[in-house]
């Protein structure tokens, strides 16, 4: 929004009417009030981690976006291999690459040009396919507001002990993710959906992984506790594909997902690699972008969290001591066991803290115009506009001041 206003004023001709507009910044507010920031006290520390869920979303269609499908299917395979069952995975694929008419290898999807791994091999259960992948359906999955006829396999049936992995890939930009080439998921909508999930205790912890251009902007508006997010690139950077498969004819995998998979192929279900080792395995030079993650909403330390907390299957199990026999007398042992995966603390690694979403103002260019008073005025005006927080309300003020302008023009 702010970006649009800047270009608007840059290209404007000189008229006194815009000074008029500037003078009319009043206190009225027409936009929707920002969402109330009242969190219920998070008791996520006291609930037990009972299950893992994965929501894997591929949002692009058309043959040349083959790599996004391959990304999602690779992660699906990884997550299944590490133990999450189909009934706890929601897979949303916006198009069908395996049976596409342009696919030289029908019913096969590869993520590497060596074609070693067929991602579409067996046991692939796609929950939302083709045109069912829309922003509305995605938000319905997250918030749980389905029509009554929607089957259980299409619902996210998580509870307050669930850890959810949310992976999104496709084409994205500053604060949005493109769905199906026709609509957008905005970052504030995603933040609002996550906030509602937290209020309804639909997750204990949430890991968001985004592999798009300017991915870090998509989760910039999040404010719910218990959320960890990593994106493949920061604002202003693109995410690139890894390599082109000359046989299939398109790029088959993105860099971020490629290196993620490289990390996971070394693991199996019993491993204890931590999240910090995953996050630190991303090298900006090989990724050609900076993988940015935000941990300010996440209480636990990344070195202590094993990746199987999100990517694998963990069942808290309790042994049954005794049968419950009605008339007889059966005593039992006292062994109540709770099993939990071993937590291995890895070495301390340096976490790259990068700051994004700062609009830099370079005031050097203003020096040249200081002589001209109008240019001075315009530059100070531009400065003011760029520091305005509520760009929406500014536009609304503009709309309101249209009325006196119309008045003026009819009187003249």
């Amino acid at each position, binding site marked *: 929004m702010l970006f649009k206003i800047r270009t608007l004023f840059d290209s404007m001709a000189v008229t006194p009417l815009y000074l008029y507009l500037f003078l009319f910044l009043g206190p009225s507010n027409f936009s929707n009030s920002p969402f109330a920031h009242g969190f219920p006290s998070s008791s996520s520390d006291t609930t037990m981690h009972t299950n893992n869920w994965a929501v894997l979303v591929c949002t692009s269609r058309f043959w040349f976006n083959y790599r996004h499908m391959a990304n999602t299917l690779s992660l699906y395979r990884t997550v299944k291999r590490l133990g999450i*069952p189909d009934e706890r995975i929601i897979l949303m694929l916006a198009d069908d690459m395996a049976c596409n008419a342009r696919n030289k290898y029908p019913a096969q999807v590869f993520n590497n040009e060596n074609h070693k791994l067929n991602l579409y091999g067996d046991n692939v259960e796609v929950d939302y396919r083709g045109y069912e992948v829309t922003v509305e359906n995605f938000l319905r999955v997250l918030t749980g507001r389905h029509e009554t006829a929607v089957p259980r396999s299409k619902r996210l049936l998580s*509870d307050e002990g669930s850890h959810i992995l949310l992976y999104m890939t496709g084409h994205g930009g500053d604060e949005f993710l493109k769905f199906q080439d026709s609509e957008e998921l905005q970052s504030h909508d995603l933040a609002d959906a996550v906030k509602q999930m937290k209020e*309804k205790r639909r997750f204990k912890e949430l890991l968001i992984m985004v592999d798009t251009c300017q991915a870090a902007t998509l989760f910039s508006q999040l404010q719910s506790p218990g959320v960890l997010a990593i994106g493949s690139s920061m604002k202003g950077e693109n995410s690139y594909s890894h390599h082109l498969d000359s046989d299939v004819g398109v790029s088959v995998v993105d860099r971020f997902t490629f290196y993620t998979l490289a990390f996971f192929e070394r693991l199996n279900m019993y491993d204890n690699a931590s999240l910090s080792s995953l996050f630190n395995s991303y090298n900006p030079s090989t990724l050609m972008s900076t993988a940015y993650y935000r941990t300010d909403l996440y209480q636990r330390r990344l070195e202590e969290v094993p990746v199987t907390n999100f990517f694998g*299957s963990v069942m808290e199990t*309790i*042994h*049954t001591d005794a*049968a*419950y026999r009605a008339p007889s007398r059966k005593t039992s042992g006292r062994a109540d066991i709770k099993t939990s995966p071993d937590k291995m603390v890895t070495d301390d690694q340096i976490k790259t803290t990068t700051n994004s979403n700062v609009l830099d103002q370079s005031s050097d260019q203003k020096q040249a115009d200081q002589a001209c008073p109008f240019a001075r005025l315009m530059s100070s005006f531009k400065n003011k506009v760029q520091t305005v927080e509520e760009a929406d309300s500014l536009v609304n003020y503009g*709309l309101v001041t249209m009325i006196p302008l119309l008045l003026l023009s009819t009187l003249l």
Partner: protein
Amino acid sequence: MAEVSEPAIAETSRPEEPVSEFDPKSMRKTKPGLKRLILTLSVLLSFLLGFPFLWKSVEIYRAPLPFREIDHFSAQLDSAPLLFPCHFQAILIGFNSKPSISSDDLQFAISDLTSQTPQCGACSASYTVSVSVDSDAICAVDFDSDDEAVDELLESTLGGPAGERKVYSVVVVNRDEDVRAVVGKYRHAWISGRVSEAAALSRAAEIFVKVFVNGGKEEGLIHGEFMPVGADGRIVLSFNLLNANPNDGVYDWEFQKIEETVLAPVIEALRPVANISVESQVLYHTPKFSFSYWDHKWSSYIFNTKDLPFFVNSNEWHLDTSVAAGGRSKILHFVVYVPSADEWPLLLQLPNGEVSKTNGFISPMWGGVIVWNPEDPGDTPDSKQPVRHKISYQDLQKVFEVSMGQLRQLFGLKSDNLFVGSSGTSRLLASDRGFTLWELDVLSRQHTCFNLHSCATTLGSLSRLVQSLPRMIIMDEIGKQVHYSLEVAKLAQVNASLGVYDASAVASRQARSLAEDAFYHPSIMSVSYYSFEHCFAVYSPFFLPVSMHVLLAALREWRRHKQENKKYLAWKTKINKAS
């Protein structure tokens, strides 16, 4: 003529006398007409009259929600935890001298054991305590006989009709034998043996607080992961018989019979807590995920507790295939796993080296698994057809006893029947309904608490969401559901204060399910839509220019009318001055 032209000449030729001068710019001779003004004003008026209709037609329909009541309800639950009235009764038998303890002593002992801050579901501060001595009817009970028989006799004397208030009793019998404490299936317990009054008092108080009120656990509160009731108040118990390798022999069961005998009473008993339905299926080719190794000592294949999280092979075990379960019900899977012949027998080893007696484990909110080893897998037959076996009724009963234990564990209770307290171990009698009456009371209280809290938070979230999006449509159905939910919640609170545990559990379950229906109504989509900018952008090109012109026209006419009026008045004053 001079007279005619005189006044005219006089007006024009005598500029020093402005009274008779006619200045067309500031004066007029005739009264200004009202036609133009009426015309423009009527158009303006029609616009103004139409404006409310336009406003009404673009108004967003929002069913009124009782925000204040919701806040009041949440605040009420937060400030004062829901407490139930309890009645305790201690009966002392066989103490020769007049007993020196009174009900105050017992009350003191009980309050000593209860925590300072009462948790939700505990007894309210105004519980009643009574101590009585040597009641004739109780004396007649023969404490030498079987525990079950004693229990039945006590129930016939102590237990009142169903409608009466629920009293928890402890009978202390001073006899010449070792001290034993048994908690019965109903709402009473007894301690018999060589026990002094003081010891009896403290033991009775402990039984009251730790067993009857807290359900046999140290802290009375059941955590959320042991409340497997779905958001619509229903649970589906899904029983699955898994044949790991059917080539060694296919095992089948007579589920109908065991359901009628074992499961039906349990479902009936749990009716206030949840609406339960049962499904069953038999699956083939379902190997487990983890590995086991041969152990010579036990001469069987062993898997230990570290393998338990990896036992369930979710890829091959297609358990969640229920079509009856709605979107918000909870499914609990009970799996009976028959291992293949080359892993027979398969036993679970505990960390202390012992082999498990039940061969079963649970996972909270998911269900339970029991490994059942058939008698003898027999030789691998040469024929292509696998041999069909049916699990015998006795074996199936044993398996279902373990399942009952697992169901109790899933609800947060213990599957064994011993209570170890600070003053000794008590034996808990088992009920053929799966849950004893006092356990059902505990479950009802805890679930009422949990459901009401969940209802309050859901309604609170809904009201916050609705208020933060002032332009979102709220349908009538949502308003009705919220109203009903609040009413039923109030009913639950009233029932709780009266001590009617089952009715309050049922009402609280309904309140929670209505609140969840309202919150999860599919029409509430918080995607920003129907914003003010949209409205403005759609309607302003139609109305803004036209209304601008109408307004300006009216204003202009009004101004002109005033001007003309002024002119006319000026002329009139001139004339008056002149004459």
